[in-house]
């Protein structure tokens, strides 16, 4: 009788190739890291790394270009979609994506994102919505929830004084030039998997030339929300999801046709 064969060892999960070896500067538990990793995985799996150009924003993710092992440019605050427009028009064969936070995209960059979508630029936007300005120390953002305490709204966001949170995905979905607009969340494993699928679809939209694509990802900011990392994931599920519903706001019928 022969000895039982030694079981093979399979690597189930490892760092994606599109990541550099650098450790991110993000706070412990910040879901920016998850979003970065999902993008890297999707680009690896679609084999787009050699022709992808990313556009980094201003905000916590200002150093995103250091963590991705691909071409990257750094845009002025809020102007990533404008820069991506230029790159995509000059190099239409390349895949161009921007990675922006809510301060960058929904506040100072509002004009650029609206007009990029209105023109139907064939770019992909990854929008990280954590309802706060992270890098500058936790001030109120356009996406801050009503009643939420921030350093510039210490008694909670007063909607009579400062208005209501802006829902970017819903707004952009009304534009004719957009091809794929969805909102996903990063608060648990199930939703992270869904977010990865959405990123696939967004890059697929661009590859097929179906217009502007955006994935909004609800993210956490444990440092500025002043709660621990696992509680901040609960905060997303309990407080943010009711205000920012997770849904497909616009999916070009071409995308679902071939997949079905």
């Amino acid at each position, binding site marked *: 009788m022969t000895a039982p*064969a030694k079981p093979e060892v399979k690597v189930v999960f490892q760092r994606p190739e599109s990541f550099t070896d650098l450790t991110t500067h993000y706070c412990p538990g910040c879901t920016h890291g998850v979003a970065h990793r999902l993008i890297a995985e999707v680009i690896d799996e679609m084999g787009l790394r050699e022709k992808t150009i990313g556009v980094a924003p201003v905000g916590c993710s200002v150093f995103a270009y250091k963590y991705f092992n691909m071409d990257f440019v750094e845009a002025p605050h809020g102007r990533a979609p404008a820069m991506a427009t230029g790159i995509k028009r000059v190099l239409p064969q390349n895949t161009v994506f921007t990675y922006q936070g809510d301060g960058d995209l929904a506040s100072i960059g509002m004009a650029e994102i609206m007009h990029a979508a209105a023109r139907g630029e064939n770019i992909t936007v990854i929008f990280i919505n954590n309802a706060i300005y992270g890098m500058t120390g936790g001030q109120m953002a356009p996406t801050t929830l009503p009643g939420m305490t921030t350093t510039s709204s210490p008694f909670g966001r007063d909607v009579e004084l400062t208005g209501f949170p802006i829902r970017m995905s819903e707004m952009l979905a009304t534009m004719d030039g957009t091809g794929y607009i969805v909102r996903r969340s990063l608060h648990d*494993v199930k939703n992270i998997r869904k977010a990865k699928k959405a990123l696939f679809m967004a890059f697929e939209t661009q590859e097929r030339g179906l217009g502007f694509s955006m994935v909004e990802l609800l993210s956490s900011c444990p440092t500025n929300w002043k709660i621990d990392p696992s509680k901040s994931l609960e905060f997303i599920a309990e407080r943010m999801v009711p205000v920012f519903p997770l849904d497909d706001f616009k999916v070009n019928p071409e995308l679902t046709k071939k997949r079905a």
Partner: protein
Amino acid sequence: MPVKGWIEVDDMHCKGCALCVSACPQDVIALNMDRLTPKGYHPAHLIDEGCTGCAVCAIICPDAAITVFREVPVHSKKAPESA
């Protein structure tokens, strides 16, 4: 026989946020309070048998610090998945 797996946590990347600890369905991950990483965090580590290599910890990990391994029995009837 249950599937046997294990994880390796990269000290350079782990920031001790403990998201993997609360996510682990088998409850076999904890922060190592006896050790510090070069950045000064208590890294996550396996504390018990029972890891199935499901990779839930690696999916929730914001720093891609976890590599997950799983033993694949050679006499398994199922064809091994491509890597």
